[in-house]
């Protein structure tokens, strides 16, 4: 049952992964890739757990390296994505969009 639950979680996540980005415009491909890249940086929490439970020095050193690398992935990923996206600030037709939003 537990295995089935985890498998279900996996399958559902696949669907969500497909669905949420299914209508992204090509202009956003690069930031999206970069943002997704940052998200898997959360693997650093796994590194923290294994390093914190290391049973000898080899494991500890490997674990610390893993933390460093994971943190680079996570922090660097989000920061670089934000930098990219800062460039896309103004919406293309701010006037038209605003007027639509302004309606009650």
């Amino acid at each position: 049952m537990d295995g089935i639950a985890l498998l279900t979680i996996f399958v559902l996540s696949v669907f969500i992964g497909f669905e949420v980005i299914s209508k992204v415009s090509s202009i956003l491909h690069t930031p999206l890739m970069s943002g997704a890249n940052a998200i898997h940086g959360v693997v650093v929490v796994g590194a923290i757990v294994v390093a914190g439970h290391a049973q000898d020095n080899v494991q500890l050193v490997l674990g610390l390296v893993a933390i460093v690398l994971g943190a680079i992935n996570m922090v660097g990923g989000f920061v670089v994505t934000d930098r990219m996206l800062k460039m896309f600030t103004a919406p293309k037709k701010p006037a038209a969009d605003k007027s639509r939003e302004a309606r009650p």
Partner: protein
Amino acid sequence: MTSTWAGLAGLAVSVCFILALKGLSGPKTARNGNLIGAAGAVLAVIVTFASDSHLEHLPLLYSALAVGSLIGWFAARQVKMTAMPQLVALFNGVGGATAALIALIEYLSGGAGETKLILAATVFTALVGCVSFTGSVLTFLKLQELITTRPIVLPAGRFITSAVGVITLISAVDMVVTPTSARLYLLCVLSLVLGVLVVLPVGGADVPIVISLLNAFTGLSVAASGYVLDSVLLIVAGTLVGASGTLLTRMMAKAMGRPLLKTMFGAFTAVAVGTAATDGVERSVRSSSPDDVAIMLAYAQKVIIVPGYGLAVAQAQHALRELVDLLTERGIGVAYAIHPVAGRMPGHMNVLLAEANVPYDQLKEMDEVNPEFRSADVAIVVGANDVVNPAARTDKTAPIFGMPILNVDEANQVVFLKRSMRPGFAGISNELLYDPRTSLLFGDAKDSLTKVVGALKAL
């Protein structure tokens, strides 16, 4: 903090990541989406420390975290806009390495006794993480031009790659059946080699697609590590990235007209086409001086600018903007025509021009601007080539055949700013360069633009 609370927090983080991806796929919500993702990641780290009271070596853990965060932060802040794709590749690679290391440590700390399912997940994590690591690092080296961007085809490369691939798979199965740490180390080494072999023959143009694919790989590897560590969060986060990354890769390949499967072995064809490209060098072209171009522009009413990869290489966006400002001051109508795959990553031109503070409403997308070339006096092509190559419409053998292009050939006069007669990314020559209405201004795009600006001011 009890494990129920930790679980709920993990779920909250998963939701953040879903919302992040959702946000990232819309232009208005993208930035907030990324911030939500970042908030989720921070929450995940805090909860990890707070929920597990058995963590040892805390000072070391914190230090490692701080070091990694600082490195990531600085790298991300310092990198030039043009170098972003390779930085993302590098980040992706280290993420894969992290997952692989987790699998390794988890095994070393008593994984031999685990169920076969857990072992299989461990092996998968290590294998895919290692491939992603070396593969990504290699794409980084290529894009950074630390090694050649051309496809590197080893003699019998295809054979070697296949052989190593098969051996790796066998050793992976072997490891699941009779696990020993020696076998796991061997598997890691094989996987590292495999990552190199797979990416070596990928040509410069396909590199962004491969980065995206390796990104999806790392996601799957993280998901598998979540199974090993019994972490729902890692399973969800990794799978989300794996799935969306796969779809994104397909969409990117489609936008560039590259069949995804051919990408990995595109090297073989690329070479052949490359040779054909030099044929045209003997034919005559009309080259002109910055002064000629300045005069041509000064008497124009409507000018369309087509930026391309060369603009990024030359970092000429600021010079270009200066030129456009000058023209606008003179009452000349100017627009930028943005082809969806101009440059080396999607949105490349938008990012570059936004960096130079070009107002958004001057940027026109292909469908919007194409009907306007007919009435344009001058089209200036700044370091673009493939995206204006009429072969895409006419030459069935061209690798870009079928790709919609900017109709620069309909403009009254065309000016190319490039350094030589060398072809662009697709490696094919461009008939438009020999057109009687075309003039070429040879030289680095930034230099040329600066000279044109100077000449225009002197008029």
